[in-house]
Structure formats: structure tokens, C-alpha cells
């Protein structure tokens, strides 16, 4: 346990090494909220509603995705592809560590960093833009939402390991990651609530694990997901499925690892 605590601490130190880098990253997280805020203000700021969302409800949703995004999608595992290509994966492989635990602990450190800074950023956003904030008071719903967020964190971790592992077979991992990023931007519900989409697109997106990263946890928290139990079960199914795929991909990939550059 002590060694994992050390990895946790070292990862935090790494983040703080390049301080401007860190500050810019956090500023970006605020900008993620700004663009949709202005778009929706232009459309709904004078009143009325679209797809059943008023300006207040859409702001609550966007504010929620901004917070959740930092927590769920803050990750250090995105470095995996680079580590494979540069050969620096060799170092953690040679240590007496479970490699998945190593990456997951690094992810947790990143999330703690994000969470800490959110306590500064959230009051700032609230002060400047005054988005309506909904505090869930039903402890059972809070519990379900917490479970859903934890599942989302694990799903995102597995997705990152699978995509990072592509570097075992190809030098260019930027293209698949770019495609993944673009797909996730819309399919997680980060851009707008997925229930604004036509039914066909909703069905298509719900056949992927992406809505379970942001959209579902947020809907559960807001208490607006009548099928929350089945959604939690589906998310659990994705965790198992992606977990198996991750192990298979890793086992196959590690055999072709050549530790280039080391």
C-alpha cells in the first residue's frame, strides 16, 4: 500500500512541476463551460424553452457536466501510448507493481488535483455567471449518483488503457485518440443533453459506453432519470466487458512490446 501512496504523491508532484502548464489546464476547464453558456444564453436568455429545457435547467446541466468532466475525465492514463512508444513503460513494468493499479493510482491523483482546484473555480463560475445550482437532498439519489460516477471513472480508465495500448502495434496513436476525443465530446453529453437528439441518434449513442461517463451520472444526480437502476446495471455491464477487453488487449500487446529507445 505504501508504494501506491508514494506513486500518488509523486504524480501530484509531477503535476505541480510545470506550474504554468497546470494553471493553463485549469483555465481550460473554465472555458469548457463558457462557450455553451454563451450559446444557450443567446438562445434562451430571454426566456422560453427548447426540448423541455429552460435556460436555468440547461445551465444546471452544463455546470454539472463541467464539474463531472473534471472528476471523471481527469486522467494520467492518456500518457500510456506515449510511454509505450518512448519505451518508458519499461520502468513501471520492472517494478514490483500491478501495472493497472499503477495507472489507476495516477488517475486518482489527477482527479484529486482536479477536485481541489474545482473548489476555487466553482465559486468563481458561480460568482461571474450565476448559473442556477441544484443541490440534491435525497441521500438515496446521492448514493446512486456516487455509484454511477465511480462506474464512470472505471469505464473511462478502461477506455484509456485500451486506446493507449494501440501503441503496442502502431506508432501513430494521435489519430485514434483524436477520433475518440471527438466522439466523446458529443456522445458523453458534454456538448448538450443527449435527450435533445432525435431518437435514432439517442439509441445509437446509448449502445456505446459513452453516455455512462457524464450524461447518466448527471441525470441520476438531478433526479431526472426514471430508469436509473437499469442504467447503473448497464454501466456495471460495461465495466465488466471493458475490463475483460482491457486484459485481453494488454496481454496480447505486452508480448509485442520492444521497449524502443531504452
Amino acid at each position, binding site marked *: 500500500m505504501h508504494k501506491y501512496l508514494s506513486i500518488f504523491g509523486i504524480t501530484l508532484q509531477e503535476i505541480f512541476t*510545470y506550474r*504554468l*502548464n497546470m494553471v*493553463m*489546464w485549469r*483555465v*481550460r476547464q473554465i*472555458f*469548457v463551460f*463558457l*462557450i455553451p453558456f*454563451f*450559446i*444557450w*444564453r*443567446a*438562445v*434562451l436568455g430571454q426566456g422560453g424553452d*427548447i*426540448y423541455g429545457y429552460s435556460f436555468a435547467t440547461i445551465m444546471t446541466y452544463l455546470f454539472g457536466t463541467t464539474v463531472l468532466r473534471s472528476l471523471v475525465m481527469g486522467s494520467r492514463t492518456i500518457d500510456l501510448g506515449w510511454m509505450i512508444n518512448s519505451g518508458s513503460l519499461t520502468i513501471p513494468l520492472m517494478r514490483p507493481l500491478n501495472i493497472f493499479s499503477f495507472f489507476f493510482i495516477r488517475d486518482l491523483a489527477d482527479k484529486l488535483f482536479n477536485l481541489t482546484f474545482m473548489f476555487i473555480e466553482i465559486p468563481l463560475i458561480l460568482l461571474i455567471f450565476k448559473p442556477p445550482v441544484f443541490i440534491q437532498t435525497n441521500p438515496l439519489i446521492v448514493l446512486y449518483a456516487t455509484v454511477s460516477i465511480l462506474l464512470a471513472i472505471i469505464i473511462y480508465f478502461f477506455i484509456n488503457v485500451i486506446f493507449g495500448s494501440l501503441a503496442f502495434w*502502431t*506508432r*501513430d496513436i*494521435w*489519430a*485514434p485518440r*483524436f*477520433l475518440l*476525443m*471527438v*466522439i466523446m*465530446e*458529443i456522445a458523453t453529453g458534454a*456538448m*448538450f443533453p443527449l435527450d*435533445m*437528439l432525435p431518437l435514432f441518434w439517442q439509441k445509437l449513442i446509448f449502445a456505446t459506453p459513452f453516455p455512462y461517463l457524464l450524461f447518466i451520472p448527471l441525470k441520476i444526480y438531478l433526479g431526472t432519470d426514471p430508469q436509473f437502476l437499469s442504467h447503473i446495471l448497464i454501466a456495471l455491464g460495461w465495466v465488466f466487458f471493458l475490463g475483460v477487453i482491457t486484459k485481453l488487449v494488454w496481454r496480447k500487446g505486452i508480448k509485442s512490446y520492444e521497449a524502443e529507445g531504452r
Partner: protein
Amino acid sequence: MKLTHLKAYARVWLKLTAQQFESQVANARGAAALFILGKVFRLGSALLLVYVVVGKAKLIAGYSLNEAIFLLMLFNLAQTISQLFLRGVYIFRQKVVDGTFDFYLLNPLSELFYSLFSYTDPLDMIVTTPYIFLVGWAWVNAGYAITLPLILLLVVILIISTIMVTAWHIIIISIGIKYLEVDNTVMLYRDLERMGAFPVAIYGRAGENILTYIFPFALMSTIPAQLIFGMFNPWYLLIFATLALVQLQIALFIWHRSLLSYSSASS
């Protein structure tokens, strides 16, 4: 700069771009297809956002759905062209950290040229042609006539905005020299740039002014669209041209200042 120098730069750029293309073909043929697919998907999702928001609301800042789509297509083209030559910024930090930047300084050609233009992505060139056709389609769809003077004015705007974009990229890599940070700064710039995909009026008076006079993002979509819709006097472009040249001079000054603090730490 003498003409012979310009020829040398053009020759080196062509060579570097050809090498980049060969490297892509040799290392990642499938990745190229995925990259193009990603670009198409990104444009598709931006289009979807416009459709979902403006399609239902009917108007955004006084623009109809078809006009908003035209703005998006203009932005997409301007963004692709301005980025086409400036890919070097994405790997610049690594060059400074691992000491490769020393070799840029030792080269007879400008270190700035290598830092900015040495990684032109040929895939960007491939997607530019369909993007031009998409602008043409959206233009007609918005109900405005395509005329030669308007096309020429669009090219002028594109050149002015590219100068401003280049100035900002020079500032970003100058920060990279001084603070060893480029990646999140350039991504922050990209996040800001995305604001240009919508009419800048939606960002309020202060936001509109910042995106118009400090950053080139209004020049990438709102201003050319207004020009075509007959809402913008083309003579104002002289002000923007002056502004672009001033920004470039300031950026070059910052670049030269930042070079003084380069310590070649890793080599």
C-alpha cells in the same frame, strides 16, 4: 528578405512536408484515415450542435439556421488553412525540453521557421478541398450570390486572419521557451478559437471586441459572413490589415526577447 532566401525557405519547407508525408505513409497509413474521419466527425458534431440549437430556436444573434451553418463552414475552412502551416507548435515543447531546439538555432535558416512550419500535415491539405466546396454549398444555401469580388475579399480576410493566427502562435512558443509550457497554452488558444464558430455577438460587447480586435476569431467567420450578407464595409479591412501587422511585430519582439532566456537545459 532576399528572393533567394525565400526560395531556400520554400525548398526546405517542401522537403520537410514531403518527409512528413513519407513518414505518415510508412508508419501509419490507417491512422491517416482515422484522422480524416475524426475531422469529418468533428465538423459533423459542430453542425449537429448548430442544428440542435438554432434549428429549434430559429435565430441566433439575428442569424438564421442556414446563415449560422455558413458561418460554421467559413470558420472550419479558415481554421484548417491557418493551422495547416503551424503544426510545429504542437511538438515545440518537446524540442525545447530535449534540446533539439539547439539545432534549430544552429541552422542557417530562421529558428522560427523551423519551430512553426516544420511539421505541416499533408492530411490538412487533403481535407481543405472538400471544405472549400462545403463553404460554396453553405453560401448558396444561405441565399447569397457567389461573386468574384466577394471571393477575392474572402481571400484577403483569410490572409489577414492567418497573419494574426501566426502572431499568436509565435507568442505561444515564446511562452514555451520561457516557461517550458506550450501544450495547454495552445489548447487554451484552440478552446478560445472555437468561440469563432458562432456569431461573436453572442459573447456580449466585451467578448465581441476581444474576439475581433485582440484575437482573429471574428475574422475567421463572423466578419466574412457579414461581408457577404452586406453588413460589413470592406474598407474596414485596412484597419484589420494594420492590426495584423502590428500584432506580428509585437509577436516577433516577444519571440526575440524569449530567445534571450533560452538556456539549452537538456543538451
